[in-house]
């Protein structure tokens, strides 16, 4: 294929001008380079080209200019899916990270059973992305689910959390918060980097627990909060499995769990509207890019670097 010839040409060209280590390095890199071209970078460009076409896999793509993007402006379901995803990101990420930080600070003082607590709290974040746990969630938050049974003991009649459009999204956000273990482990590792002498000095100066947290722990941990925030926002924009399983693939009830990725999947792989799906994919990339850029810009005002 064209990629391999290009790579050969690249390497042949180098061989005349550069010492052998160059060639050897590209040899080691070759799987990654091929992957970059064929699996990653090529498809990104192809995606951009496709976004200006109408394509359904069966006929050749036809160039329609900006029509797909014009269509977005009046697409109500797209607007809904953006809103759902936005709510999920804006609520889910801070709640998850806040809980992760709180528990990490609680765990950090050399306490008995630390390793056990950490393991138990970490486990859900390994399982949370699975279909099996999404199925479990579907039962727990169902009309006759575990939550409503427990509520029944105290005489409250619960609602169908996932069949009610007002609450369905929040049950999926709850699942996201439940997986706080992974950022918690990152926080724990970060907390351990803070020199003990800082705390000694603060205690000598008579600082209380809250003051120590507010003026020592928190500023020193901001780079890690920032790192977690960037990564979690990016991955939250791509959430798919939980909403897909909980809503039975529809994004319902009444589109209340229509995550952006679900809509993209429906357009691209349900309706084979590949051109529009490619345009949606680029929209997602732009949105994630803008959020990440804002994150990096805002970081100047609150992230504290010790060195």
């Amino acid at each position: 294929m064209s990629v391999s010839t290009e790579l050969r040409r690249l390497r042949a060209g180098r061989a005349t001008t550069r010492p052998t280590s160059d060639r050897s390095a590209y040899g080691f890199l070759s799987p990654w380079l091929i992957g970059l071209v064929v699996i990653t970078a090529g498809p990104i460009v192809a995606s951009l080209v496709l976004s200006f076409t109408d394509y359904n896999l069966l006929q050749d793509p036809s160039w329609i200019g900006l029509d797909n993007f014009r269509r977005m402006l009046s697409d109500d379901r797209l607007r809904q899916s953006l809103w759902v995803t936005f709510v999920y990101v804006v609520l889910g990420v801070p709640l998850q990270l806040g809980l992760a930080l709180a528990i990490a600070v609680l765990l950090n003082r050399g306490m008995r059973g630390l390793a056990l607590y950490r393991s138990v709290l970490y486990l859900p974040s390994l399982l949370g992305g699975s279909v099996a746990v999404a199925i479990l969630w579907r039962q727990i938050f169902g009309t006759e689910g575990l939550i409503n049974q427990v509520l029944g003991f105290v005489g409250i009649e619960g609602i169908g959390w996932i069949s009610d459009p007002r609450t369905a999204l929040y049950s999926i956000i709850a699942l996201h918060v439940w997986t706080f273990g992974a950022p918690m482990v990152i926080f724990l590792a970060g907390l351990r980097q803070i020199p003990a002498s800082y705390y000694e000095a603060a205690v000598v100066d008579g600082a209380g627990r809250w003051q120590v947290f507010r003026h020592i722990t928190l500023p020193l941990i901001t780079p890690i909060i920032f790192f977690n925030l960037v990564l979690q926002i990016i991955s939250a924009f791509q959430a798919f499995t939980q909403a897909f399983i909980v809503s039975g693939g529809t994004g319902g009830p009444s589109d209340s769990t229509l995550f952006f990725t679900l809509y993209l999947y429906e357009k691209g792989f349900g309706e084979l509207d590949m051109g529009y799906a490619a345009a949606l994919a680029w929209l997602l990339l732009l949105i994630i890019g803008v959020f990440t850029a804002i994150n990096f810009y805002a970081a100047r005002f609150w992230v504290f670097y010790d060195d």
Partner: protein
Amino acid sequence: MTTDTARAGDVRTTSGPPPGERRRPADRGRRRKSLVKHLVLTAACLLMIYPLAWMVVSSLRPEGEVFRQTGLLLTDPRPENYERGWNALRYPFGHYLLNSLAVVVFSIVGNLVSCSMAAYAFARQEFRGRKLLFAIMLVSIMLPLHVVIVPQYILFSELGWVNTLLPLVLPKFLATDAFFVFLMVQFIRGIPRELDEAARIDGAGHVAIFTRIILPLLVPALATTAIFTFIWTWNDFFTPLIYLTSPDAYTVPVALRSFVDSQGATSWGALFAMSVLSLLPVFIAFLIGQRLLVRGIATTGLK
């Protein structure tokens, strides 16, 4: 003790009574605080684990009790749900487990080989465009899969690879999980360069240095990669959902999904049973490798 705030692990290694031991009242207050903390944490752990434990217990109860029993007490465990769930779909559930196993095994091999090679080049070799390529590699870690999935699908379907394992496995041999390249670069940077130099003086080339010096020392990072690849690939739903449309090729998550669709809420017991079965390998991987998992995300998370 007032200094224990920062170092969770080191404190217990110091011998003898801690310096604050003599101040009795403060000590008692601290002990009470610590008790409260343990209670809070234990409650949090129970709350976190309860749904999972309840699913396991429910899968062993007679059908129909799933909606009546909220407790974890299991007086008479029954395997019927497992029998029914195993045979509920077109193929016995073992078929899907084997499909998943095949994907996982090839993915692990692919990631180990391709990511370690790329990591060696980035960490130890000089070449034109290194900085730019390294930056591209870092950015690609954060790249959403959805941006590339449409053209990727078109490519793989043109090649006639839909309903084969190739679209799931081949990318792993091309180091597309750049996260692991990064993890291994970090690790290789920690290996003393003197070892490379010594080998080079003895006449070793890059291939020999990579296979005889770096790879053996890289084993912890390789193990971390293997275990994360295992868990992520095993759980992966989006990619198989797109590429595997015939039941013959289903991996476990797609099979479970079709189980939900076909049975709906009519047989939670059997559904739970197969769900538990699908989580079991991840749970075992977690038990075996939790040290590696924790260290893996802690180190890549920090730097």
